């Protein structure tokens, strides 16, 4: 059986391109341009899915991207919305959430259990006994739900783009198109976006049997297409509104983040169903859905049907249906007043009877419950929402079109901060106070008459142009009055229920009544208890009726109930779209490729990539062996590490010394040129946040290093304070401009000396000395440092010459057995030296007194950052102290880890381990730990609790640890 009708003007299908696909094992024919639902419906297929909870058969409802009972799986893709997704050749579709197919779904028995599954039942059951919960959870998850997640889904990169315009118009219906044209006429750049495949909104389907308004659409679209200032994007939705008019536009290919100067929201309205028993049967659909089927896809919604309506739109729908040969048995108008005389007469002239003040009391399912066979029509009391069943009439039909009213598609307006008010003239929430730069037009603004919508679009555009500084004449207009487009209470009570309000979650009228009885009578609470609006359609066809029902229950006006919060994204958006391509910047040192080629195991250190250790191919080294060998090379011969990641900042100017005195804890004003000092930085609370070395290169020039991860933070803080303190200082961040490497170990002097014109002898270059000269022919800055070894040289050269100098040093050190070492060995080496790492051994509360750094603090200075806090702290007793410790000789138990706790004699937490490593050189486990001050002196014993709970004895010990070798007689 086919429901396809003869070619219609403006239809969206291409009859020259037939397509074949499979649905639930059945071959189906469609056309290019068909959606899955339209193609299935054209082929007489009425069951498009099963409902989420009761597994009831469902067909078309909105046909507007909200039919969440018609979700499909096609191979690796799932939750495909059949009402809008285009068919293509070879698709193999199955409805989601069925067991045994959509017709024979084994879970349909749940519908019979529905009386025992009232709203909120799963909040109250299954959780006792606790051990049974996993069993029930498994059952519930299998019975409910949507498509199955495919964990092997390929990663398709969906780019996130940026776009800019003067005016973003959301919605390309009559008002949106008019607004776009009017804004463009003012010379403004316009982006016009619409979620439908083609622009036009209701101009492409709501004809009332007369397609003359298609001429209006054609004229508007022609103008838009010809206008260079307008960029029209269709098949895309505006996902949300963010500050400063940032609106993400979601297309199949990805997201475009539109930054607009102003936004016109012309998003229209969502049609709302009347609520009566079995209003969910396949064949019962919204009036606008029936119109879309007819005019866009040339498909008859049904052969013989009725229209139930609570507004004039139902009459228009009836005329559209009659125009394509549908046998419309009756228009059943829930209003006692009925529609206007002209419209009523037109309907009657088409041979359709009109029943005012009547309702569908219930739809009667066909014997297999997969369709509808008749409706029971009764007189209806609008005040009580009761049907008079004593005067019921049965009308045979295979379909029902429903029109009861509209809810504004106002998510963007809400998100932008619009204050909405309930307008009783249209029985709808409308914008009462719009945020700056945001405008509303058309039905979402409560304007329904076609000509008025166009005028309203132009009015909004004029206001937007004025807002953007254009000299335009602002003219107000009065929208033509229309019969109330929405009914205040389109609900029909039924003692047996199954009068569905929310089709996503199978929520009936009685569920709201029960929720209110249980105290969930606030709209936000009711939403969560009943789950109304929490399904994939997010309440687009249910929230308004829910609000009306709650208002009736509480005997309050609708505006007192309010609406739920509208959050972006307003429509489900694939995670892949949100993730986009993903930019994760990394910094590379000049020697990066050398490290990779020599077995460097690269790791992320902040944004930098650094070698943790070197395990050259074929060497057969474990990570631990590599680290111990690298450490040993530094202790016994020579090693070299790439230290380019250190922060490097130059401080120039007549106030340079004075600035560092204020910025750091130590003294720098009297520092000699060519010397270096440790530079410790505190925050205002006296917490240690960084340490580095400050070198005085000239009277008015310092070269300061920072921890690798702190360069940007310290530089920014310096910039801030230079301005705050109004000092004559210029700062230059050389972190990326200079490569750095440290040559360390007893033979390091020989290696460096062989390549430099600087006198690096012990006499000429003691600890902390700084010299400039050539290294391997390159201008270099060389410093005697002792972070990882007693004898070490830190060499800084321009980045672009870094690899050259590194290679030259490796070559020069070959005879001495030089080894590159990575960050893992560096950590062990500094531990052996007894140097703590800021932010690793210290935390966000550690002050210098706790970190054994008193010697770096010049409290007698007039000012430095954090000094005020330290003055308070120095008067208080310490709670903890960072100390170096060693495990007992020949320890072979479970080795504690970093963050394991120090436990006191009362079994209370007394501290924690901050660093611990096995030193092959010392053959001991050594580390740092916070301990109570009384346990921080050398020789004090304390206990560490390991991951498994075992207690390990440790001894506080002075550092560097090399005295342990002496005690062994080495």
């Amino acid at each position, binding site marked *: 059986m086919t429901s396809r009708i003869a070619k219609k003007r403006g239809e969206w299908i291409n009859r020259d391109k037939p397509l074949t696909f499979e649905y639930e094992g059945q071959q189906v024919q469609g056309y290019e341009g068909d959606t899955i639902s339209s193609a299935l419906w054209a082929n007489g297929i009425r069951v498009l899915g099963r409902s989420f909870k009761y597994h009831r058969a469902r067909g078309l409802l909105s046909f507007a991207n909200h039919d969440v009972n018609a979700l499909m799986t096609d191979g690796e893709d799932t939750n495909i919305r059949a009402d809008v997704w285009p068919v293509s050749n070879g698709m193999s579709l199955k409805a989601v959430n069925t067991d045994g197919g959509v017709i024979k779904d084994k879970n349909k028995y749940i519908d019979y259990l529905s009386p025992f599954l009232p709203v909120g039942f799963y909040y109250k059951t299954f959780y006792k006994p606790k051990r049974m919960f996993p069993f029930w959870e498994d059952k519930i998850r299998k019975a409910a739900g949507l498509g199955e997640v495919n964990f092997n889904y390929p990663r398709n990169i969906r*780019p*996130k*783009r*940026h*776009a*800019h315009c003067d005016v973003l118009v959301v919605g390309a219906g009559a008002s949106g198109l008019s607004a776009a044209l009017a804004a463009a006429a003012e010379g403004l750049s316009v982006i016009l976006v619409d979620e439908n495949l083609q622009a036009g909104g209701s101009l492409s389907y709501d004809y009332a049997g007369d397609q003359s308004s298609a001429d209006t659409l054609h004229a508007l679209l022609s103008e838009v297409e010809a206008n260079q200032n307008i960029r029209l994007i269709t098949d895309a939705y505006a996902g949300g509104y963010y500050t400063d008019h940032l609106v993400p536009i979601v297309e199949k290919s990805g997201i*475009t*983040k539109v*930054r607009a100067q102003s936004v016109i929201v012309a998003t229209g309205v969502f049609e709302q169903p009347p609520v009566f028993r079995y209003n969910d049967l396949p064949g019962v659909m919204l009036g606008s859905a029936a119109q879309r089927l007819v005019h866009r896809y040339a498909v008859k919604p049904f052969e013989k049907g009725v229209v139930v309506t609570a507004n004039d739109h139902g009459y228009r729908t009836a005329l559209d249906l009659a125009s394509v040969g549908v046998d419309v048995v009756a228009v059943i108008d829930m209003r006692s007043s009925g529609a206007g005389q002209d419209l009523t007469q037109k309907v009657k002239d088409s041979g359709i009877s009109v029943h005012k003040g009547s309702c569908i009391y219930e739809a009667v399912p066909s014997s297999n419950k997969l369709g509808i066979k008749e409706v029971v029509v009764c007189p209806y009391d609008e005040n009580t929402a009761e049907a008079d069943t004593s005067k019921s009439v049965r009308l045979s039909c295979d379909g029902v079109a429903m029109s009861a009213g509209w809810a504004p598609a106002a998510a963007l307006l809400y998100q932008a901060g619009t204050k909405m008010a309930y307008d009783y003239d249209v029985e709808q929430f409308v914008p009462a106070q719009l945020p700056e730069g945001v405008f509303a037009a058309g039905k979402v603004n409560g304007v329904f008459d076609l000509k008025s919508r166009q005028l309203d679009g132009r009015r909004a555009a004029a206001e937007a142009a004025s807002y953007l500084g254009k000299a335009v004449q602002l003219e107000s207009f009065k929208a033509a009055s229309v019969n109330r487009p929405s009914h205040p209470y389109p609900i029909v009570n039924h003692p047996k229920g199954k009068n569905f309000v929310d089709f996503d979650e199978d929520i009936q009228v009685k569920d709201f009544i029960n929720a209110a009885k249980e105290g969930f009578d606030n709209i936000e609470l009711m939403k969560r208890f009943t789950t109304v609006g929490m399904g994939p359609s997010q309440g687009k066809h249910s929230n308004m009726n829910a609000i009306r029902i709650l208002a009736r229950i509480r005997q309050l006006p609708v505006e007192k109930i309010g609406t739920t919060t509208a959050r972006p994204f307003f429509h489900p958006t694939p995670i892949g779209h949100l993730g986009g*391509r993903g*930019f*994760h*910047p*990394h*910094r*590379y*040192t*000049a020697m*990066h*490729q050398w490290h990779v080629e020599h077995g460097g195991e690269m790791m992320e250190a902040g944004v*930098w990539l650094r070698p943790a250790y070197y395990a050259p191919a074929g060497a057969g080294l474990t990570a631990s062996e590599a680290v111990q060998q690298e450490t040993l090379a530094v202790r016994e011969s020579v090693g070299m590490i790439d230290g*380019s990641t250190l922060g490097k900042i*130059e401080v*120039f*100017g*007549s106030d340079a010394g004075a600035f560092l005195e204020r910025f750091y804890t130590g003294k720098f004003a009297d520092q000699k040129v060519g010397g270096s000092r440790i530079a410790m930085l505190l925050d205002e609370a006296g917490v240690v946040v960084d340490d580095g070395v400050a070198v005085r290169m000239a009277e*008015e020039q310092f070269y300061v290093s920072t921890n690798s991860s702190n360069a940007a933070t310290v530089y920014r803080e310096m910039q801030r304070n230079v301005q705050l303190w109004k000092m004559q200082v*210029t700062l*230059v961040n*050389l*972190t*990326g*401009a*200079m490569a750095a490497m440290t040559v360390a170990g007893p033979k390091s002097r020989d290696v460096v000396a062989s390549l430099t014109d600087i006198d690096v002898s012990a006499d000429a270059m003691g600890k902390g000395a700084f010299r400039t000269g050539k290294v391997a*022919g*390159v201008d270099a800055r060389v410093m005697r440092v002792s972070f990882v070894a007693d004898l070490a040289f830190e060499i800084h050269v*321009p*980045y*672009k*010459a*870094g*690899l*050259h100098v590194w*290679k030259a040093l490796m070559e020069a050190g070959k005879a001495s057995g030089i080894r590159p070492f990575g960050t893992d060995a560096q950590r062990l080496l500094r531990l052996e030296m007894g140097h703590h790492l800021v932010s690793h051994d210290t935390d966000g509360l550690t002050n210098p007194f706790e970190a054994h750094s008193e010697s770096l603090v010049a409290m007698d200075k007039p000012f430095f950052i954090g000094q005020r806090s330290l003055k308070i702290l120095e008067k208080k007793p310490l709670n903890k102290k960072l100390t170096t410790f060693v495990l007992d000789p020949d320890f072979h138990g479970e080795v504690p880890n970093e963050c394991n706790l120090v436990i006191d004699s009362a079994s209370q937490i007394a501290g924690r381990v901050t660093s611990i490593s096995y030193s092959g050189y010392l053959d001991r486990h050594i580390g740092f730990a916070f301990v109570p001050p009384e346990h921080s002196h050398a020789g004090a014993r304390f206990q560490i609790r390991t991951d498994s709970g075992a207690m390990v004895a440790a001894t506080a010990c002075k550092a560097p640890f090399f005295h342990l070798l002496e005690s062994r007689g080495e």
Partner: protein
Amino acid sequence: MQDAVLMSPVAFAHALRKPVNGEVNGMETALSFDAADVEAKRSQTLSICDVSNLNRFGVKGPQAANWLQAAGIKLPGTTNSWTPQDNGSLVMRLGNTEFLLEDQPENDLTGMLNDTAVNEGGVHKVLRNDAAFIVSGELTPALFSEVCAIDLEGATLEENRLVMTVIAGVSATLLKQTLNGQSVYRIWCDGTFGPYLWKTLLGIIEEQGGGPVGFNFYYKLN
């Protein structure tokens, strides 16, 4: 050939594509990635070229502008703008008191400035390590729309304006100029981010049907 002393920060990111390398300004440089006609076509569609080897000079400080003018340099009048010198060198004003100069291959203005002593206070030479790229082609707006949040299609880059922005998560300086009759975009970023930015931009460029072009495409060196 002896290894060049200087390496482009992007050099190793080029390596997989096996470019024809040469030394420019002492720096190993990818001279070409493909045949000239292929690169010419790419440059019309969408292309990226590494020009990190061009000599640069940075200067900063309250007297930097006076010092440059005394050295005969024509300065941009306002911050965030640039001006070419008669010999083609670019002078970019990064802030009120900060400048970046970049030579063309055939001139050495930056060398002259490097050799000029600073005898007054308030002038500080700044060591530069920029990764520098030329991006060209009709799809450039599509590329930038994905990697940069600001509107580069409007007047943002007209009239010798300079934009400091974030490109693919990296702070960068951007301008638009005409080179060999072709409208191109210039990008500078911290050299340590250079390999990342090169790989990221090139990945998108290749998705769009473009590709890399060598230094010779713009500067015709051999």
